């Protein structure tokens, strides 16, 4: 009995404040969670808007399961860009290993899944000044209009020529290769799956 009294004497402050602090965090969380979720959703929509300015609505489609680069099953989020009831293109989230950390991209393709419209980096932790140039126009612009076939990374080439050859960023070959691999892996599998599902037509 004495022991219990001793424990309570020693720890009552800790127990009481743990409850109080927990309550404080819960209240703050409840007050802000809607805003935080809205921010996260806006981030994706803003990036999509900048890639397809014509579309006025992005409807989230059923996720499609594909094999990741490590051969495990992953779900890919797909968005359909719509304007005046017409499909303007498709967007999907693609992710994989970068140089330092996971890279998450959002890739936009046209409505028949034949040409890439562009991509945008949602999250990455590449080396500042080198790898993070994957979001610069020199590298990114090469994807706009490229065919949705297997893309290759080349070290020397004409960056202005739009084809399936992507010229690497000097000093950041690994990051450049990572983006190409991520897009290849997700895009090629999605194309097949979406054709099977009849979401897009082969012409």
């Amino acid at each position, binding site marked *: 009995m004495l022991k219990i009294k001793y424990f309570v004497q020693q720890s009552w402050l800790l127990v009481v404040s743990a409850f109080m602090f927990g309550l404080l965090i819960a209240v703050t969380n409840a007050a802000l969670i809607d805003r935080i979720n809205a921010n996260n959703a806006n981030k994706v929509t803003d990036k999509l808007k900048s890639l397809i300015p014509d579309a006025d609505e992005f409807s989230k489609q059923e996720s499609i399961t594909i094999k990741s680069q490590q051969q495990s099953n992953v779900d890919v989020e797909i968005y359909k860009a719509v304007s005046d009831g017409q499909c303007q293109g498709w967007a999907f989230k693609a992710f994989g290993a970068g140089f330092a950390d996971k890279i998450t991209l959002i890739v936009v393709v046209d409505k028949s899944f034949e040409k890439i419209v562009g991509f945008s980096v949602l999250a990455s932790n590449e080396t*500042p000044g080198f790898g993070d140039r994957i979001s610069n126009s020199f590298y990114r612009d090469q994807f706009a209009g490229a065919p949705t076939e297997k893309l290759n990374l080349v070290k020397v080439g004409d960056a202005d020529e739009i084809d399936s050859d992507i010229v690497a960023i000097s000093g950041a070959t690994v990051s450049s290769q990572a983006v190409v691999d991520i897009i290849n892996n997700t895009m090629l599998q999605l194309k097949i799956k979406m054709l099977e599902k009849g979401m897009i037509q082969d012409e």
Partner: protein
Amino acid sequence: MSSNENKVSSTLLAGLWKENPVFRLLLGMCPVLAVTAACKPALTMGFCVIFVLVCSNIVVSLMRNLLKPHLRILMFTLTIATFVTIADLLLKAFQPEMSTALGPYVPLIIVNCIIIGRAEACASKNDLLISIVDAISMGTGFTITLCVLAAVRELLSTGKIFELTVLPTVEAGGWFVPWTAMMLPVGAFVTLGLGLAIVNVICKKKQA
């Protein structure tokens, strides 16, 4: 009464120079090295630290007479972790861009030794007023130092301060060749080292 006023004003000034947390006490090196690549994240980090420091100093000062000596560090950590979590949520809600830029360094404020150091050295021994003044002083000193280091690094690595162009870079048709290294960790160590050297020289001169 006047001795109390003296204590308040000396506490207020201590954090800015004499006991500057970065240059004199060498505390909180993790954010100093990690988030000073640009001014905006550095300033945001500074404000987060001020917020957490003030809140935790208030709470610790209020419960200082109830603390059991062997459980005090536990109580400090619990208090600090609570306010850091709140700061993190606030940042995510109102400054989502900065929240992404700072990444894991906001939750890492929990282990920032400035805050636990002030709880231990000041708030657990002094009344509410002194604790708040101390928190503001230390927090401001930390924020200013962070911004100075960040300004040097941002200027040399991009030619900009607070994203405003100061030195026109070669890419934009100017003359300044950006030092990419200043954006990398090496830039953080070099800038901090030079900053420490300058402060030490000034202090030695003052003593002599």
